[in-house]
């Protein structure tokens, strides 16, 4: 490993992703500007508020360069809000909310409910050995439609919550909030 992995640092739980990456031997880089982006091999889109990030992506001038890198095949991993930012279809979003539309899924925001419904659970993940993954869901979305090229790696009650499509991965939960680094490892293993 040792790749430079960017963490989109406009808003959200950037620190936890950076810590998980460092723990696994990658070099995390906080990405706030197009210059920051140019040096990274892959990008993590963290948890946070997708509506806020969508606005800040526009004003920071990052939206177009990230879209261009994604089109060139830059690997990316989105968690929660990050999943929403990668999705082709966003349900229950704001009409002006922008996403990169590269991952062929329809994702419903806050699909598991409000904060009082937020939960943690053990999640069986395809391709991850060593028992269920420690998964924290915060006002989490889930995938309502996954396109043909999308692999579903984990589900909660029949709803996909971890998906992969080529170099792109997205989780409805927050692997960065637990000490269980296996999902990050899975992403880095694909680099």
């Amino acid at each position, binding site marked *: 490993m040792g790749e430079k992995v960017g963490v989109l640092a406009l808003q959200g739980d950037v620190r936890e992703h950076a810590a998980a990456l460092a723990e696994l031997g990658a070099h995390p880089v906080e990405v706030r500007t197009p210059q920051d982006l140019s040096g990274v091999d892959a990008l993590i889109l963290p948890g946070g508020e997708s509506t806020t990030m969508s606005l800040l992506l526009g004003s920071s001038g990052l939206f177009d360069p990230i879209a261009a890198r994604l089109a060139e095949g830059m690997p990316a991993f989105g968690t929660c809000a990050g999943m929403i930012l990668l999705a082709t279809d966003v349900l229950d979003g704001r009409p002006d909310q922008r996403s990169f539309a590269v991952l062929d899924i329809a994702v419903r925001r806050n699909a598991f409910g409000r904060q009082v419904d*937020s939960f943690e659970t053990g999640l069986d993940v395809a391709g991850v050995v060593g028992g269920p993954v420690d998964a924290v869901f915060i006002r989490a979305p889930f995938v309502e439609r996954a396109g043909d090229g999308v692999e579903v790696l984990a589900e909660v009650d029949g709803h996909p919550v971890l998906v992969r499509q080529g170099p792109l991965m997205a989780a409805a939960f927050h692997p960065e909030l637990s000490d269980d680094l296996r999902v990050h490892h899975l992403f880095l293993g694909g680099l």
Partner: protein
Amino acid sequence: MPGMTERTTGTERVKRGLAEMLRGGVIMDVVDAEQAKIAEDAGAVSVMALERVPADIRRDGGVARMSDPALIEGIKAAVTIPVMAKARIGHFAEAQVLESLGVDYIDESEVLTPADEAHHIDKWAFTVPFVCGATNLGEALRRISEGAAMIRSKGEAGTGNIVEAVRHLRSILGDIKAIGQADSAELYGWAKRLQAPVGLVQEIAEAGRLPVPMFCAGGIATPADASLVMQLGAEAVFVGSGIFKSSEPAKMARAIVEAATHYRDPAIVAKVSRGLGEAMRGLEMAAVETKLAERGW
């Protein structure tokens, strides 16, 4: 795939987790659905529902209480971002009502008139997470020991004056730094002095920060104010009167959102600070009759 997934709600991680998601963002005080829309349009990560903004509570006097559930429901219906609401210190029945309404965070707040002069709410008894204010580290740790999942430095709400927020942040963060230098025997002395559980003091010594996110509130009125407190170590900002008591709330809100993200880049803070109209007028501390920050124990 197995049948229904077993879910555990209301855990420490789940409660603190939402606060982690709000980091780097701006939480805006709103009194109705219309203001909530303006806040969300401007990029707020969350809105705080209350019946009057602190500047008006200060001006009007009287007992300040939890807002009308109908207003909270209107705000919830108007936006997609998390909705917080305030309960009076110690008023666990207001908190129960807010939890039943499905608010995403409860602020047990000194801005409202306290209901109990000795006890704060037992926040462990709730599924919904709580944020509490603190002026110093001891107060922050007592609130965390009662179950608070987020701390905000109190500042002095409704003044548009940042000086108290800076005092409180420096006090909390200064003590955290000092605890990092203390040896294991000295930690007991710190716990005694702070009137806080030694276990939490040891946790801070180990981690170098609070076990929950620390945000800043009380007096933020400009983008530069947001940049200042974020550079001092706040992880996000609450803005109360500073937005809707300014001459152009939508512009001010948007500018503070940009400043909270790019707080280390003065060129961006300068750019977003141009032409915002008048910031809220504000108060000198000497002119403040009731210090809200002194409420809470």
